[in-house]
Structure formats: C-alpha cells, structure tokens
C-alpha cells in the first residue's frame, strides 16, 4: 500500500485550482502549471525506476479492500505513460509561454492544461473500470475546453465534431462498463480479470470485447472511426494540437492494451487477427489521407492516425512481446510526433500560414529549425540510429517471429510512404525557394524552437541508447500481460475472489 500513488493526480488538481485563483497574475499561473507538471515528471521518473524491480505498486482509495474500493495500480506501462504525459505536458507549457495569446491565458488556458494532465494521469493509474470512464470524462471535458478556447469559426466547427464523436465513444464505453458489471459483477480490473478466467459465457465476452474495441478505437482514431481527428486537430493553437497529438489518441491505445492485455485476454485469440487487420488499414489509410493535404498540421494529423496503426499492431500480435514492442513504438511516436508539431508550428508562425504553397525558403533562413525537422522526420520514418528505427525494428521482429508476414510487410511499406509524405513538407517549407523575400520574415523565437529541439534530441538519445528503453518495455509488456501477478499485487496472493467471499460472509 503506497499512498503517494495519488501524487500525480493530486498535484495537477491543486495546481489547476490555484491557477484559477491566481488567474489575474499570468506569471503565477504559468509557474504553478510548470511546478505541478515538474512534480508529476519527477514522480513518473521515480515510478519508472521503482516499478520494474518491485512489481506493480498499488494504493487503495480510502483504505477500502481491493475488489470493493477503487484501486490505483502503477505497473510498468502505467509508470511509462505517467512519465511521458508529464514530460510532454512540460514541453507544451514551455511552448505555450511563447505562443499563447493573453486572451487565452486570461480565460483559464493553464488550468485547462493541468486538468487535462489530471485526467490523463488518473486514467493511466486507475485499476477500476468505471473509474477509468470517469477519468476519460475528466480529460475529455478539459480537451473540449482547450479545443474550443478562442471560439473562431473553424474551432467551433471542428470542436463540434470532436465533441460529438468523442461523446459517442464515451457512451459506448459506459455501455461496456454496464454490461461488464452485469456480466462479471465487479468493476475492479483485477477482479474482472480473475472472474473472466472462470466465467463460462464466451459469447458475451466476445460482445464485450467488441464494445470496448469500438469505444477505445474511436478514442484512438483507428480506421474507420478516425474522422473526428483530421477535421478538428488543425483548428486550435499549435500547442494544443501538439499535446492532443501526444496524449489523446494514446490514451485510447493504452486502454486497448489494458482491456485486451488484462481483462479480456482470452478474447485476443478471436480479436487478434481483426486487430491486426484494423492496424494495417489504419497505417495505410492514414498515410494515404495525408497525400491530398497541403497544410502542415493537416498532414501531420493524418500521420497521427497512420502511427496509431503501429501501436494497434502491438496488441494485435497478442503476446507479451507484441505489447512490449507496441509500447516502445508508442513512447517513441508520442515524443517525435509532438516535436514535429512544435517545429511545424514554429515554421507556421514564421510564415504566418500553414499552407505549403505559400511557405518556403526556411532551410536557409532558419537552418537549426530545418535540421531538427529533418532529424524528426528521419526518426518518424524509422531511419537508424533514431528512436523510430528501434520502435519499428522491434515491432517487425515480433511480427516475423510470430509469422505475421502480411502486417509486417504493410508496416515496412508504410514507413516508406511516411517518409515520402514528410519529405513533401521538407521540400515545400524548407527546401524550395520562397516567392517572398525570406530575409523579411521574422526569426524563430528560441522558446518556439527549444521544446521541439529537446524532444528530437531525446529521440536521438533513445535511438542511440536503446538498450534501457527496450529492457524497460520488455518488463512493462510482461507485466501488462501477466494477469496473475497483477491480481496478486492488487488483492494479495489469494486473489480478489477470496477477499470478496470472506467479506461477503
């Protein structure tokens, strides 16, 4: 029992409340946002050091026994995600210092960011299915605020689609929670996992898995549930688009990993091939959708969808090794995707537009920006020795070792298409001559360059020092796939059913 597991939830919550109170002082709310996020980052790093050796850490809310109360569980996957969420939020906050206008700051921009971090950290740590639903709603309502903050026509149009389709997904999740409670008689994830092994109604389990696949698939933007993403992600300010690209869809991925890795592991035998098929379609359709686009952020939005396909491939391979490979890739893509949004956003700000036809000449004008963009796209495409190479290599290795040759070939081919698509931005924004006189354009501000550059450098470092990353994620994948260890950590060695029966008597 470790009560400090509540820290990553409490710190952004208190931060958000203080930032609302001190809203009149922009500097104070900025500092509070920075501080809360740093606390989460430090705690996430500590979790990542502790959890692989100690096994999952567990805290019970209000001291209720495990299957009755709400458990917080930090296993390797949760710890990684909590750390990444805080790291990405930190870069976003720094980027926001230099790019968010005063009007947005005055209308509770930083509290909304902290509430988003609150919801995300809660969702990653909870060990209770209904509680996961509640955290989803917390982070959704914060994201609704962020995407519509400003209220331009584009934001309202994109926001409406984003809100409606996400609400539909949430309702499906609630539907699944209700069915699960009726079916298993419990909402504690460990207890559900334990009862799933003994309950004999395979038909209903399959239906439940389908409901959850729809619910989390629509959050993760897999084919054919992705349409809300490209029509809304380019409308808010760059910082908001970037943090959404890093976190929002990945929570859907995390939930799919959790639900299929722990609760409904038996169903992977049925759903594995379908998940792999969806993964392949998501990769290809995402990257092809980007072809027609001529706007930096819209191209990158379609690539989010394409990269989600790789993460789904990890769960589709239906093994601990597949989960581990998917986690390595997801961690890589969260970092690199955000870096590309930051750098693309900085280029957008210099040119005053995100339209590729009207941009150009930045390679000569801003060589550093161009360098980091180029490293970023190399990493996204999977060129050694960057982190994308490691992520894709491990996924392809697992794919080949499990004789999933078709999806492996599709994944490799999609990498090439991704590279071509990214080269289009490179050519148009950085390489080609500008029609205007580039020397008249404003210089990039250090604050807009630094967050993206830092994330690209992190990606290079993760590629060069891939050993610890892969080792960590191998353990995390095993923990996410090992139901008995999870149940023992949450409810004790006898399991949740024993605790439940003893208490009911």
């Amino acid at each position, binding site marked *: 029992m470790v009560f400090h597991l509540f820290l990553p939830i409490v710190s952004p919550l208190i931060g958000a409340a203080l930032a609302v109170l001190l809203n009149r002082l922009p500097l104070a709310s900025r500092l509070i946002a920075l501080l809360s996020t740093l606390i989460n980052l430090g705690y996430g790093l500590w979790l990542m050091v502790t959890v692989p050796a100690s096994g999952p850490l567990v805290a019970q809310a209000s001291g209720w026994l495990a299957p009755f109360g709400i458990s917080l569980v930090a296993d390797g996957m949760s710890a990684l995600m909590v750390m990444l969420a805080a790291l990405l939020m930190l870069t976003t906050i720094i980027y926001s210092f230099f790019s968010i206008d005063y009007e947005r700051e005055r209308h509770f921009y930083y509290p909304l960011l902290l509430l988003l971090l609150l919801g995300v950290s809660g969702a990653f740590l909870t060990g209770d299915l*209904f509680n996961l639903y*509640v955290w989803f*709603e917390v982070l959704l*309502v914060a994201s*609704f605020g962020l995407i*519509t903050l400003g*209220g*331009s*026509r*584009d934001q*309202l*149009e*994109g*926001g*409406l*689609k984003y*809100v*409606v389709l996400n*609400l*539909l997904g949430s*309702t499906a999740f*609630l*539907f699944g*929670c*209700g*069915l699960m*409670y*009726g079916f298993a008689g419990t*909402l504690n994830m460990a207890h559900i996992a334990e009862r799933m092994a003994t309950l004999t109604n395979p038909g209903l389990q399959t239906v439940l898995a389908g409901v959850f696949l729809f619910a989390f698939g629509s959050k993760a933007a897999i084919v054919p549930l992705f349409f809300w993403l*490209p*029509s*809304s992600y*380019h*409308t808010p300010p760059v910082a908001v688009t970037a943090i959404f690209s890093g976190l929002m869809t990945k929570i859907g991925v995390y939930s799919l990993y959790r639900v299929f890795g722990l609760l409904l592991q038996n169903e992977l035998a049925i759903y594995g091939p379908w998940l792999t098929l969806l993964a392949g379609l998501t990769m290809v359709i995402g990257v092809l959708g980007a072809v*027609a*686009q*001529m706007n930096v952020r819209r191209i990158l939005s379609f690539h989010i969808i394409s990269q989600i396909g790789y993460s789904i491939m990890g769960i589709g391979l239906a093994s601990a090794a597949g989960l581990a490979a998917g986690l390595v890739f997801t961690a890589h893509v969260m970092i690199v995707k955000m870096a590309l949004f930051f750098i693309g956003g900085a280029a957008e700000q210099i040119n005053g537009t995100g339209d590729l036809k009207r941009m150009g000449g930045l390679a000569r004008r801003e060589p550093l920006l161009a360098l980091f963009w180029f490293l970023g796209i190399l990493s996204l495409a999977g060129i050694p020795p960057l982190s994308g190479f490691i992520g894709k290599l491990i996924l392809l290795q697992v794919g080949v070792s499990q004789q999933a040759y078709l999806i492996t070939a599709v994944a490799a081919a999609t990498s090439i298409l991704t590279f071509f698509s990214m080269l289009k931005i490179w050519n148009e924004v950085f390489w080609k001559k500008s029609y205007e006189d580039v020397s008249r354009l404003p210089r990039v501000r250090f604050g807009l360059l630094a967050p993206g550059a830092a994330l690209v450098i992190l990606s290079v470092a993760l590629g060069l020092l891939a050993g610890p990353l892969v080792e960590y994620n191998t353990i995390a994948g095993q923990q996410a796939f090992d139901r008995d260890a999870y149940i023992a950590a949450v409810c004790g060695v006898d399991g949740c059913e024993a605790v439940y029966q003893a208490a009911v008597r």
Partner: protein
Amino acid sequence: MIILLAIAIGSLFAGATYLVLRRSVVKLILGLIMLSHGVNLLIFTMGDGVRRGAPPLVDAQGQPPAGAADPLVQALILTAIVISFGFTAFVLALAYRSNQAVGSDDLDDLSTTDRL
C-alpha cells in the same frame, strides 16, 4: 419488469440512432441525450434489484436485510447522469455558438475544416 425495461432501452437506442443520423445539429444533440438515457437504463437493469424486486436499502443498524438489492448500479447511474448533464450543457452552448458563427443548423454547412 425486465421485459418492459428492455423494450424501453431498445426504443431509446433506436430513436437515438435515428436522431444522431439526422443532419440538424439540434436533433443530433437530442439523439446524444436520448442515447445517454438508454445507457443509464441499461446499467440499471444490470443490477439484481430489477430482477428480484428488492430495494437497495439497509436497516437501522446499517445492515442490509435479507434479499436486499445491489446498490452499486444506482451509484454508477448517478455518476453517469451528472457527467452527461454537464456534457449536454457544454454541447448545447457549443452548438449555439457555432450556430451564431456559421448561421446554419445543417451539419453539411459545417464542412469548412474538412475542405482541402
């Protein structure tokens, strides 16, 4: 009782699906509201109270009498109602603002962010 509820839930889902597929933003939101009602009723039928006809009560000593129903589903529905209430308020405000900005209630007119 459970058959009546099943019919009610089915009708709510059918009506919600019809409304969500309409082009009008207002009808779309009405569909979302109806859908959340359907899901709330579905959770209600998942408890054993409906099947056994017993209330989820405790006696003066705080002990459940024999045959008392599971109270958790009521708690879940309460949470879900509060959440869907908040979201409905938000979506209505958003629809009002987007109606002001676009000047139309037709979803087909909300396509500027998808155009190339």
